[in-house]
């Protein structure tokens, strides 16, 4: 049976208006909204320990402070998503502190350790660019008012992270020698991880409830193309090779997509194409740093909890 306000919600979405309260939602819309918010909150939250573990390798105190400022931004972004979830009836405390590490929903890329300042700035240039594409889409097309407004701050700050990533990538590339080789190696393993960030290709994803509900406006492939159209020209402009090139209006990958990845070695095997089932299995099992990162923000919870 259709919920009572299903017709009203559909009409509201069709008019391009914003949903503002739970009384206007169908149970299905609410479930999809929460799912999308959780993915966003978890991604912002996990980026904090991922970036922190790399920021400790900063080449100067100034650079370290920039890293810490970015981490503080990411925590505030996570807060925005979790607080909206709280207003929708979830417990922020349970979501952050009481979930199993494997229950967190964020792109697999963050599970592969960022171990140097170079890898951190490449993450700023490529991972934050992916976040910028995904959240920019929700900011522009999203149907839930409170989130759309919350993203104004997020977009401004992601732009700053991106600038940090690009400035440093350029600087490291210009330094040449060993520094530049390290940059190239980071891009080699991180580029394909960000390409898969956008999920299944459109021809395998038959139907998107998120698109029906305007929880996003662009398809996986459209977002992936948007990301490629900014990252490929940038990397080429600083003399760093990427396995993709422009063809007509779009970008084409120079390797089989998807293919196998050795997380411990941080190495892709472009000669070994694999199925999306194999990729989904790798994502579900999570990667090397999942438990360590979740422990970084969960471990002191029990210790400092004040009991009523």
């Amino acid at each position, binding site marked *: 049976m259709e919920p009572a306000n299903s017709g009203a919600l559909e009409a509201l979405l069709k008019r391009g208006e*914003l949903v503002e309260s*739970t009384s206007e939602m169908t149970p299905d819309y609410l479930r999809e909204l929460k799912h999308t918010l959780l993915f966003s909150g978890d991604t912002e939250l996990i980026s904090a320990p991922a970036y922190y573990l790399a920021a400790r390798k900063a080449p100067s105190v100034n650079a370290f402070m920039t890293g810490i400022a970015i981490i503080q931004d990411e925590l*505030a972004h996570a807060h925005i998503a979790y*607080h909206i979830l709280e207003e929708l009836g979830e417990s*922020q405390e349970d979501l952050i502190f009481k979930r199993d590490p494997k229950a967190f929903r964020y792109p697999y890329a963050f599970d592969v350790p960022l171990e140097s300042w170079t890898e951190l700035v490449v993450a700023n240039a490529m991972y934050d660019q992916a976040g910028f594409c995904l959240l920019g889409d929700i900011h522009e097309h999203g149907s839930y008012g409170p989130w759309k407004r919350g993203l104004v701050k997020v977009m401004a700050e992601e732009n700053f992270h991106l600038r940090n990533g690009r400035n440093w990538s350029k600087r490291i590339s210009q330094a040449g020698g060993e520094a530049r080789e390290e940059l190239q190696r980071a891009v080699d393993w991180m580029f394909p991880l960000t390409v898969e960030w956008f999920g299944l290709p459109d021809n395998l994803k038959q139907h998107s409830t998120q698109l029906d509900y305007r929880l996003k406006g662009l398809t996986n492939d459209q977002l992936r193309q948007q990301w490629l159209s900014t990252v490929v020209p940038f990397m080429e402009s600083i003399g760093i090779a990427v396995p993709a090139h422009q063809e007509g209006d779009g970008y084409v990958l120079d390797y089989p997509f998807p293919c196998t990845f050795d997380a411990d070695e941080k190495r892709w095997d472009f000669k070994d194409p694999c199925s999306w089932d194999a990729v989904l299995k790798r994502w579900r099992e999570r990667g090397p740093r999942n438990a360590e990162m979740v422990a970084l923000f969960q471990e002191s*919870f029990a210790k400092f909890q004040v009991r009523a």
Partner: protein
Amino acid sequence: MGYTRVHAEVHEYDVFARKTRVEPLHQVGSVVAPDDDLAMAYARATYDEERWVEMMIVPKAAIISLWAPGGDS
């Protein structure tokens, strides 16, 4: 609404700010804290994306809503 946090009892505050004198205050977000002092600190640290000329926080409990989207009006 009951929030449980590391503290036994916390309150929600709405955060309002404006960038320039000519624009009106608008809601930039909210924070949840056990008291006004911590709420101010959280608001300052969380919503630092602009050089605001004015920022204020209001306990959500003090807001009286006349009507809202999705209501019966």
